[in-house]
């Protein structure tokens, strides 16, 4: 009797752990694996993008996975299927984090999250749309939002009107006075009586509230076309082969994922183009986006044309396409991702262009970490301080020299760290650029560049301190001499002598007591 064992699951997991993605892909295509278990396994193992291919028709799972692996376009597609406020909000937040202004805008529009929307407009400097949000807030009678959005827009007159409409003439007078709108200020001050006069005076003395400076005016952040990982390009390639050979239904999963990306990238464009009419937002959802849906249907039935949204439907159609008779149809299907992706700004690279795609260099080990590694070998307290680990340095000093009081060493610690890292101020709002300063090294001594930080204390410096101490004692200034002696005592354990390679083979370390 033969007991049949289906090894696909463990073969799949083994291939995944060995990163043999061609095997993974073959198993995905075989359809032997399915279900939530595989999805959650992949997710837990950090392969959300692979899991995405298993979560074919479950919109919520697709949405979660797409957010996790940063595929905003796929997430947008899933969100449109779900169409829930919470989903849109999550999508908007994530899209903003990716700098995808268009999708963020669309998501906030869908849930009518005016606060976030206005902030987004203020952020990207979309002044005309911001003005519309202000008008809209006025139309809704939302005084708070009106004032806030007017502040974003830097529209002082509107701020005054908002305060006035809200029944706060004194505040309005102050706002008008501070903005230099004297006529309004006078009128409102009169209206508000004595309080108004005082408020106007205070406002005139105050500083003008300026609109925030827009740092990056524009739309989506520019994206590097990064090769999306082996799996995806393999999937696309394999799909091409499979379809070329006569069509395999299993390829549909991969294709539909890629297609969804294309569809959503294209779909986001009209939304951004400003079909969202702020004066009449009831029409927005029904109108502009309704039209878009209509287009999708048309394309689906037309089977080509612009090709934007066709794939949402094409994915559904795949079950029917198992036969070979629709080869021509499928060939078109295949070419579309390339075309669509080429057109979508900053879209993911397609299989054809993956060889030319920019591969981001993997980040190196931070200098501090390298310094720490070298220092933990040499057990030098000063190098630990320079590498930004004063705690480790204190532990070393405690075990090496029995130090228990570190307050006297504080200034020296700070000096060491300051000498090891230079900083150049960055753009406003950006962190300073840190430049680690390695130890001086001479080509005669070391074959490799130094792995240690620069340290400020050297024998000549200590000798200078010594001479200062002698001078004080000679002059009879005993207190100052004592201070110099203490400084010497504190500097000696933080001074490092560089070992000269080869010139001195033995006793690289010096211990005493």
């Amino acid at each position, binding site marked *: 009797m033969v007991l049949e064992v289906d090894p696909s699951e463990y073969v799949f997991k083994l291939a995944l752990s060995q990163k043999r993605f061609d095997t993974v892909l073959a198993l995905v295509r075989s359809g032997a694996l399915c279900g939530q278990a595989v999805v959650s396994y992949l997710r837990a193992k950090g392969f959300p993008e692979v899991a995405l291919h298993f979560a074919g028709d479950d919109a919520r799972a697709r949405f979660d996975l797409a957010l996790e692996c940063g595929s905003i376009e796929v997430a947008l597609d899933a969100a449109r299927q779900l169409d829930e406020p919470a989903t849109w909000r999550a999508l908007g937040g994530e899209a903003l984090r990716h700098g995808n202004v268009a999708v963020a805008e669309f998501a906030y529009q869908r849930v009518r999250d005016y606060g976030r929307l206005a902030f987004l407009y203020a952020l990207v400097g979309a002044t005309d749309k911001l003005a519309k949000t202000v008008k809209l807030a006025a139309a809704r009678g939302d005084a708070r939002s009106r004032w806030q959005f007017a502040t974003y827009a830097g529209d002082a007159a509107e701020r005054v009107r908002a305060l006035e409409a809200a029944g706060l003439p004194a505040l309005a007078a102050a706002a008008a006075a501070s903005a230099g709108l004297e006529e309004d200020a006078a009128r409102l001050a009169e209206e508000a009586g004595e309080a108004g006069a005082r408020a106007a005076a205070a406002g005139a003395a105050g500083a003008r509230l300026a609109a925030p400076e827009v740092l990056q005016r524009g739309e989506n952040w520019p994206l590097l076309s990064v090769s999306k990982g082996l799996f995806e390009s393999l999937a696309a390639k394999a799909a091409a082969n499979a379809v070329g050979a006569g069509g395999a239904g299993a390829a549909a999963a991969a294709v539909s994922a890629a297609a969804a990306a294309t569809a959503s990238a294209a779909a986001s464009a009209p939304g951004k183009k400003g079909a969202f009419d702020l004066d009449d937002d009831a029409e927005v959802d029904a109108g502009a986006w309704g039209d878009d849906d209509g287009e999708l249907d048309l394309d689906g039935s037309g089977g080509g044309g612009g090709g934007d949204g066709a794939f949402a439907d094409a994915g559904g159609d795949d079950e029917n396409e198992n036969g070979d008779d629709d080869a021509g149809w499928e060939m078109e299907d295949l070419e579309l991702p390339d075309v669509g992706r080429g057109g979508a700004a900053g879209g993911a690279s397609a299989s054809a262009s993956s060889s030319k795609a920019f591969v981001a260099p993997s980040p190196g080990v931070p200098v501090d970490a390298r310094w720490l590694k070298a*220092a933990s070998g040499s057990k030098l307290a000063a190098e630990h301080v320079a590498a930004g680990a004063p705690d480790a340095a204190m532990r070393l*000093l405690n075990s*090496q020299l029995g130090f*228990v009081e570190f307050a006297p060493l504080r200034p020296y610690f700070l000096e060491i760290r300051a000498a090891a890292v230079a900083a150049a101020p960055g753009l406003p709002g950006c962190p300073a650029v840190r430049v680690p300063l390695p130890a*001086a090294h001479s080509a005669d001594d070391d074959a490799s560049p130094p792995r240690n930080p620069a340290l400020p204390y050297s024998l000549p410096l200590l000798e200078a301190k010594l001479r200062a101490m002698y001078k004080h004692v000679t002059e009879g200034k005993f207190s100052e001499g004592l201070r110099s002696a203490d400084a010497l*005592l504190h500097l*000696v354990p933080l001074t490092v002598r560089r070992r000269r*390679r080869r010139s001195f083979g033995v006793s*690289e370390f010096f*211990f005493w007591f």
Partner: protein
Amino acid sequence: MVLRRERRASAHGRDGDEEERGKNSLFSLPLSPNPNNNNHRDQVVSSRREADELKELLAIAREYNVGLRCELARKAVAADAESPDAIKRNAELAAYFTHAKLQPAHAALALRSAMVLHYKLRCFASAAGFCRRLLELGGAPQKVVAQARQVLAACEQQDGGNPTNAIADLEYDERNPFDLCSVTFTPVYRGSAFAEDPFSGARFQPSCEGQVSPVGGVSRIGAAATGMVSVGGGGGSGGGRGA
């Protein structure tokens, strides 16, 4: 060695500008390619030797720290009172200060001040001892040498050629070697029990164990410690333990 040369220069008092240079070197360091380049060029300085210099610097700093605090303590006592106890303590601390291992010029000053004080207090035996040590030291100015000779002669004529101390219970014996405990300012004689500061190597009375050492104010007296590590390099092989 560099250190010695500079010490000689210091004794002759031409050190003002060098101190300035020392200060500046700290701030210019991050910008200069190698502050030690001169050393590199003209001599192969072994790191072992340089580490010895660090140890030497630490020992000098320790001796000056202990000595100066002893002298400052003496001044506080001397300004304080006329009581017999204070006078005795004053004489003792002046004597202890002469045993700090100072530079010859500074040691001569300490010996001279102790000599004068003890002579005034009619402690002729100890005063004669300071005179002899001052004369042995050499290098003291001619005037000081002449004064020491006179004091020595005067001391030796006292008490019928066998000088004694007016303060009978003076806790000081120049022939019995000792380290000065700088917490209690009492001698820790060689061979007796002591507690050591693992950082500076200063010795203290056993009762001081566990306190923060006043020498530097950073380490704990009597703490277990493996020893100072002050030589590093491009390498990074493991550490070790001192004896």
